[in-house]
């Protein structure tokens, strides 16, 4: 025992710290359920903003949903949008302050149901913003109702017998729709369920923030996520469920990369 204590004393020294809490994460415990993906994505965003040294020029737009309190956790200026309106709010901020880095952080209900119009049109205009899309196939904050991305057969509180096509229609693959829009610069789908996935997601989010500063269109990062409370599984079981059921419909990887479409094929002025 004494040997181990001595060993730890030698290791746990400030100069040996290789990874800790981002200085841009505020000293408050997040309200999220244990194991929630939101916390990991918040951490990544804080790290990216810190690494890029853009705390003083970044404005976040938080949604309505579980992440409504994102502004309590990342130490930057925030605008808290009405449900689904984050892309419009971000448009207003970016247009009036084009020198700022502006991002939205939205869930599936916010981005792909009530805010679908704002989402599609912000991307279609090629707004030079980052959109972070947390897709966990359920409404978390209101208690586990069906989301636009809820899987067929998935049980939620408003699909108690499983999502049914005749009654509820199909899960919406909005990221695939986004990737079709000429205003989208970079569209990617990531996850944060393993250390390797977290590293990839961090790279993708960093790339999105960097590209957004080049004014080449909208950068859109979907993060396929878990909602273990809504799914009524443990955090570890949720990761397994996500890999097994969500990844086939929402496969990870880049959907578009290279800037908004350069040509204007239908411009009647030539």
């Amino acid at each position, binding site marked *: 025992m004494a040997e181990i204590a001595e060993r730890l004393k030698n290791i746990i020294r400030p100069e040996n710290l290789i990874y800790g809490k981002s200085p841009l994460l505020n000293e408050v415990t997040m309200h999220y359920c244990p194991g929630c993906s939101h916390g990991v994505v918040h951490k990544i965003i804080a790290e990216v903003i810190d690494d890029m040294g853009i705390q003083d020029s970044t404005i976040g737009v938080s949604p309505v949903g579980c992440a409504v309190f994102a502004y309590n956790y990342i*130490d930057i200026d*925030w605008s*808290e949008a*009405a449900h689904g309106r984050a892309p419009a*709010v971000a*448009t*207003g901020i970016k*247009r009036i302050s084009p020198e700022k880095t502006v991002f939205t952080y939205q869930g599936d209900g916010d981005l792909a149901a009530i805010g679908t119009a704002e989402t599609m*049109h912000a991307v279609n205009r090629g707004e030079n913003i980052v959109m972070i899309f947390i897709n966990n196939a359920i409404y978390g904050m209101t208690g586990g109702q069906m989301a636009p991305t809820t899987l067929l057969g998935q049980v939620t509180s408003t699909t108690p017998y499983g999502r049914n096509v005749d009654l509820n229609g199909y899960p919406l693959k909005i990221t695939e729709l986004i990737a079709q829009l000429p205003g989208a610069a970079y569209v990617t789908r990531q996850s944060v369920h393993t250390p390797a996935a977290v590293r990839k997601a961090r790279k993708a989010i960093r790339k999105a923030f960097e590209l957004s500063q080049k004014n080449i269109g909208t950068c859109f990062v979907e993060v396929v996520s878990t909602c273990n409370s809504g799914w009524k599984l443990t955090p570890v079981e949720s990761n397994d469920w996500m890999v097994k059921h969500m990844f086939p419909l929402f496969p990870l990887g880049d959907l578009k990369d290279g800037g908004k479409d350069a040509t204007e094929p239908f411009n009647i002025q030539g």
Partner: protein
Amino acid sequence: MGELRLMKGNEVIAEAAIRYGCDGYFGYPITPQSEVMESLMAARPWETTGMVVLQAESEIASIHMVYGAAGCGKRVMTSSSSPGISLMAEGISYIAGSELPCVIVNVQRGGPGLGTIQPSQADYNQATKGGGHGDYSLLVLAPASVQEMNDFVGLGFDLAFKYRNPVMILADGVIGQMMEKVELMDQQPRWTEEQVKQITGSWATQGKTKDREKHVITSLEMDSHIMENNNLRLQAKYQQMKDEDVRYETIECEDADYILVAFGCAARICQKTVQMARAKGHKVGLLRPITLFPFPEKVIAEMASHVNGFLTVEFNAGQMVNDVRLAVNGKTRVEYFGRMGGILPSPDEVEKALYHKLIGD
């Protein structure tokens, strides 16, 4: 003397915004106010003053663009007409709750529903009693001329920033569409970044620097006691508006036995009625509320103690009449006359109603 021009009310809103040094306009086309954005797009102010102009995908989006941009401490605005304002109700409530300054122009048309594109004043209650959810008030200015369409843009921004509150310019299809002589203000520069920081740097989202706490634009508060205090702060602000910023115009009220109360275009019709009634020996005056919120309730209460009655004239089913009744508080008679569906009453009609309802035929 500023530059004189013959212009449409809607065109003047656009011109006044540019000349005042407005930072941004976000809108969506709707009759009878589409000329506002059309004029802005034709003027291309982004090449001169640097003003941003953007056509949004809906009124919902445009008001939330205003929310985002106003949160940066800039002077931004939108315009629409009645059905569009209904769509904006959500965003207006958020803007009021988050205490953001902005100017919203409503060039009213008839409702309910799709209604008509003809002029109306049927959004009086919506404008003065909130319109969206929650306890909030807009400061509402009612122009009665193309000149006031010009003047109220600047006044609106000044009041919006004085109170950190949305200001509505409640016009109607007549004022928006008609042409009149207008004296325009000289071009003012937009606020510099330094001025914006100086004026709004204590609350706006301009990027968190090390020397201050982060700024969060939000109307959300889960602690009931803090939320109640937030509401009390808003109510105190509305009271301050009532104390300091009531505006109205009186015409021949000094010796009047009967007072017509009308705002906007209706007041212009009533002005003729006053002349006609006076020619027949009736001592009639006109009170024109310029701010519909805060409502000129004190002057009406004072008048109520010595006049024989009030007649409100409105292009609606009788909305402002309730505010007049509250101000009069039973001290004298209060009647209403109005037309709906896009019909404007003639001065003769108003005169007849005045005799029929108040003076006696």
